């Protein structure tokens, strides 16, 4: 098929400047202007915006992912179910949702450490970890995590033993990856709730390790 250019969506603008250049240059004013325009035109309900923000500030965040990890550490059956269809498990737990429609869990072992990035944008399992931290969306992380993951890990204070391979997952599609970190030593007999407190956000992205108790 001959390449063609679609007419209806933004593409490379040679005829006139980008529409976004018409907005104020200060980012806070720019957002405010856009919100005002959309509200006036009846396209956006400001109360819905408050609700979206409240969802990701207070309700959907890394505690969801930490619960999944703690259960995987505690229950062989749960772990097996994750391997078969993690998305279905998320539905059952109420952790299915936007940017968490297709979940795959990758489990760290002494021989393989897993780490997740999105080099093309900022894909991240929102329904399990919430909104990504600034560094995850930074040019430095996006460009370097695939080429020099060990140097990046060192910047997070993580040094892997030489016998451990690194497998970096570049989230190029709608599959969202959750890293199951290694269960720390000294956690035998701990409850799921206690274990979940040891599971950091970074350990579920693979730029950190789970906390050691004590």
């Amino acid at each position, binding site marked *: 098929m001959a390449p063609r250019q679609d007419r209806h969506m933004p*593409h490379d603008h040679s005829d006139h400047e980008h529409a976004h250049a018409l907005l104020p240059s200060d980012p806070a004013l720019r*957002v405010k202007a856009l919100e005002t325009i959309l509200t006036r035109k009846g396209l956006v309900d400001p109360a819905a915006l408050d609700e979206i923000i409240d969802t990701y500030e207070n309700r959907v965040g890394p505690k969801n992912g930490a619960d999944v990890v703690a259960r995987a550490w505690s229950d062989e059956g749960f772990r097996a179910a994750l391997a078969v269809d993690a998305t279905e498990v998320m539905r059952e737990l109420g952790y299915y949702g936007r940017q968490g429609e297709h979940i795959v869990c990758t489990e760290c072992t002494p021989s393989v450490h897993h780490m997740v990035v999105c080099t093309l944008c900022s894909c991240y399992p929102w329904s399990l970890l919430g909104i990504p931290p600034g560094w995850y969306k930074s040019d430095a992380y996006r460009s370097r995590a*695939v080429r020099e993951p060990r140097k990046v890990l060192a910047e997070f204070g993580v040094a892997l033993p030489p016998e451990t391979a690194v497998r970096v997952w570049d989230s190029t599609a709608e599959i969202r990856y959750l890293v199951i970190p290694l269960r720390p030593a000294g956690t035998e007999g701990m409850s799921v709730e206690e274990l979940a407190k040891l599971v950091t956000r970074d350990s579920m992205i693979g730029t950190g390790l789970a906390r050691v108790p004590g």
Partner: protein
Amino acid sequence: MSRVHDMGGRFGDGPVIPEPEDAPVFHKDWHARALAVTLAAGALGKWNIDTSRHARECVGNTDYARFSYYEKWIAALADLLVATDLVSRDDLSASDPEQQALSDKAMTADKVAAVLGKGGPADRDSDIPIRFAAGDTVVTRRPADNRLVDGGHTRLPAYAAGARGRILMLHGSHVLPDSNAHGLGEAPEPLYAVVFPAAELWAAPEHPDDEVVLDLWQSYLEPA
């Protein structure tokens, strides 16, 4: 051939600056508003996630490099609103349109939980037969360009173009971004996780056993 957003493997970006686990979700109020207004406008149904990603890639190379994360979102949103005729260029310049009644297409506060909870799954039935099985060796196409639209959206990063890898797993059939971003239909096809040795991608890999996995559509792949 590649676009400014396609930065995997690029040199020169400096250190990654970690954040404490308890850092605020939104560092500034306007970050939160930018995210929320983008999601609420997306819920109007005038574009899909692939269109929206492509719009961010097309904000212009200079703007892409100088804009912070949520500035890219806002710029792309403004461009999409104009491209879909929801907002005019005059509206953006004057920013003082008359108040209109809330559209029945607008997401109201009571619908937010349901909309976010439902998400937008990308798996679809497809007539395209599955060509590869786990363990098969494949080569990615090169250059990593959209084959339907010149300069269009694609999810094959340049650093993985022409590389030899192994099929790790089949994810089922998913919407093809190269088509869907451009209003050419969802064109679902098989999607695979493909694993590449780091040495296949980089001149100086850090460790002989390191690997990179990418999710790649069947039409990005050829048998090795």
